[in-house]
């Protein structure tokens, strides 16, 4: 086995290899996978948001509007700005599902 870590994206079941120091999003793109949407690749647009379910990682700079400290603490981070330190299991829910869930939550909370 060469250096590096294995990333598993739970919704798609996709698994891919990530080199040390490489971002999860970049590793995914290099292997031709599409389980996480690719936006700016710079931590600015929030397009690649994922939840890390298990494993250790380091974070680069991420826009505070997309990753406020609370989100970061519960593993809601940007795939283009996380660098694994172990194997990771991540989850990227398709956008429509997230949107519907969000709308339902606002509807509920407005009642």
């Amino acid at each position, binding site marked *: 086995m060469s250096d590096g870590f294995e990333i598993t994206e739970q919704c798609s079941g996709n698994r891919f290899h990530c080199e040390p120091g490489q971002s999860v999003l970049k590793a995914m793109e290099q292997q031709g996978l599409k389980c996480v949407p690719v936006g700016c690749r710079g931590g*600015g647009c929030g397009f690649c948001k994922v939840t890390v379910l298990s494993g250790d990682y380091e974070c680069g700079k991420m826009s505070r509007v997309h990753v406020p400290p609370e989100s970061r603490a519960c593993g809601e981070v940007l795939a283009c700005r996380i660098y694994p330190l172990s194997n990771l299991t991540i989850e990227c829910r398709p956008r429509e599902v997230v949107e519907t869930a969000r709308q339902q939550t606002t509807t509920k909370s407005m009642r």
Partner: protein
Amino acid sequence: MRKGVMRPGHVQIRVLDMDAAVKHYTDLLGLIETDRDDQGRVYLKAWTEVDKFSVVLREADEPGCDFMAFKVVDEPSLQQLEKDLVEHGVDIEQVPEGELKDCGRRVRFKAPSGHTFELYADKQYTGKWGITEVNPEAWPRNLEGMKVVRFDHCLMYGPELAATYDLFVNVLGFYLAEQVLDGDGTRIAQFLSLSTKAHDIAFIHHEEMGKFHHASFYLETWEDVLRAADLISMTDTSIDIGPTRHGLTHGKTIYFFDPSGNRNEVFCGGDYNYPDHKPVTWQAEQLGKAIFYHDRVLNERFLTVLT
């Protein structure tokens, strides 16, 4: 420039990491660093620009655009525009001379789209960079990267396009160069100009207020756009799309991202207008072709990835 608003003057862009941003805008785009201030902001210009700076970088924990400014021909015009803005019901904020180094007072206001704009009449004239004013050579030999010619325009995403049009056209003296209309005749994109250029500022309809799509820099030729694409690959810079051609404006273009996720464009060519030209219209059904003339389909990223 019917009301004395002359041209784009500067844009202040928020970045997550200043060192990475300066390297991107200088080494890759070829802007020249001209100053820094005690807030840590970095001032840059493109080589053909005659004033001291056109891009200001500010480190912040959220990328995006703080404001874009237009230069007004003189102080009396600025005073008149100030009055006209107030009369139009716009709240204006006075930004004192020197708040940006070597820049005169600025009049700041928010457009209905949620974006902040400024007008100013004075900025230190430093002349074109690297060439003499008398008997100038064609270009300076020590430019870096893409060697961008000038800061050209911004594209903003936000709501209230009609009210924003009213402000820019009727108060500030821009004209509509190009538009996209949906089936009901509602304008969903407006390209506004002060000059013969295809656009000095553009807006595309978007629900969320005040979003920044891109800042664009001018290149002379298609060969320069291809060379920019080579440099984007050589430096492993995040690419968006291109090289390709727009239907809107017919400019030849490439989009990429700065290290904080702000989108940049470098482009060449594009249509020109004179006052007897009618605005060019694209229908929303043809939006794919209007934006990417060759692919003829929109990618979701172009519509939703913003800072």
